[in-house]
């Protein structure tokens, strides 16, 4: 088994309370399923929409990230899967895909030191 991070990009703004309900139910179901199959290593954390970006030799501090809504990282979690292909297959069930978002799947490098 190898470890991967899932980075969730994009924000879903529900158009009505019932739509919010459906979105949440889908997430809960997907997450529960992953957990039941032993894929969830760490449920990670949601990230706030605001933040600062510190950049360059000048150490400029700016409000940010100010990316397009679809590119903002809204949270992450750690997943266990056989390989990258398997991890990507698991990400296909993520409800964020239905609302124009994306899941970035990145293998975690194992350090042998």
């Amino acid at each position: 088994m190898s470890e991967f991070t899932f980075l969730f990009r994009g924000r879903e703004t529900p158009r009505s309370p019932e739509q919010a309900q459906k979105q949440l139910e889908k997430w809960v179901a997907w997450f529960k399923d992953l957990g039941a199959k032993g894929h969830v290593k760490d449920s990670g954390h949601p990230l706030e929409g605001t933040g600062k970006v510190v950049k360059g030799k000048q150490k400029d501090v700016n409000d940010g990230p100010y990316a397009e809504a679809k590119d903002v990282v809204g949270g992450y979690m750690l997943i266990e899967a056989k390989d990258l292909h398997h991890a990507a297959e698991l990400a296909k069930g993520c409800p964020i895909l239905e609302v124009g978002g994306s899941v970035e799947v990145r293998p975690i490098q194992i350090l042998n030191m």
Partner: protein
Amino acid sequence: MEPSDHLFRRESGRIVAALTRVFGVHNLALAEDVVQEAFCRAIEVWRFRGVPENPSAWLMATAKNCALDVLRRERTARTFAPELGRFLQSEWTLAPVVQELFGPNAIKDDLLRMMFSCCHPRLPEAAQVALVLHMLCGFSVGEVASAFVSTHAAMEKRITRAKKVLATSKKLFDVAAATEFSARLPAVHRAIYLLFNEGYHGASPETAVRVELCREAMRLTAVLLEHSLGKTPTTYALAALMCLDAARLPARVDPSGNLSSLFEQDRSQWDQELVVEGLKLLELSATGSELTEYHVEAAIASVHTMAHRAEDTDWGQIVSLYDALMTIHPSPIVALNRAIAVAQNDGPERGLEEIRTIAEGERLANYPFYHAALGEFEFRSGKHETAREHFRAALALARNSMECRFLNQRVSACERGDMQQAYYERFWDRVLVSLKTHLEGEGHN
């Protein structure tokens, strides 16, 4: 924890009401945006953590924080609630004032304030009900449209127009002003009752939608009953009426999914808790000097619940209750209802006599079940030919396939010259139910 059913819908009204209070009614759209933002944040956090133990409090706190952000960011660009103006300008007072406005007691009043504001006299009743359902019960435009069997576009237009009236009404209704409260209370009662009836007798074929509408109406009534000015004998009567009617809901659909008539229902399925609650509320309503249509209708519903079998129904008492209703709220529809009760009690000839004496009976001419009632009385008096003509007139006016199917059966029964008992019983229930719907619909026209 998993999200409970309709969690967001149930919370939406309270939050939008609280935000509108802080932002001012002219910023209604902003309040709706902030609710959306709070829901968005909830999904982002709850999707991995599960729903917290007290999701209401969580959502309200998040909405409050979003509101504080907006107030800080836009206090120079916008004006917010005029009566809060100066408190919102200074950072010293901003947080404590907003904190207080989001406290549990303030929020109870917010819901009521919004309810009364939605029943604005400049809005037609149908628009008031749509607005209540949209703003206070969290139904999307599409959901309101399907509940009222209207098109999305038409409902969108109606709700947008209603919101505009609300947003330009300068300020929210003042629920502490006793005189104004009492003056608008009847409109609020009416809107709630229309909402309930839409669920109970409405045209929407989807059972789930209908039960939800009834539940929402009862929830709003409970909010009224919690307020010192709101818990009047009339509010109790309305609550009683809804409980007693709602008690029969579990038996309205038979195991094969067909609508089951009052005569055919398995009465053991009636919700006894609601019956008991309804009778208790009916007792509480019996104070003061005012006898309203809700009192009488609740009494009629209680007569039905008292009968353990359909044939035990005390039609004599129902006739005298309709007599009372005719003095309080006379209309051709109530008179026709009364005539039907008379026919049940004293036979079809007496029913026909009563129909002939209905004042302004011509207002019923476009109503299919008026002709159908005439047909039924004639048939039961043995005049099958005349009966068939009445049923044909009714058929020409039928509004949906269920009515068509039903009336076609009547026409052919006249031709055969017989009527099966089951058809006959089903017929009376349809008439009673449809008349009631029509009675409630009169306000729209």
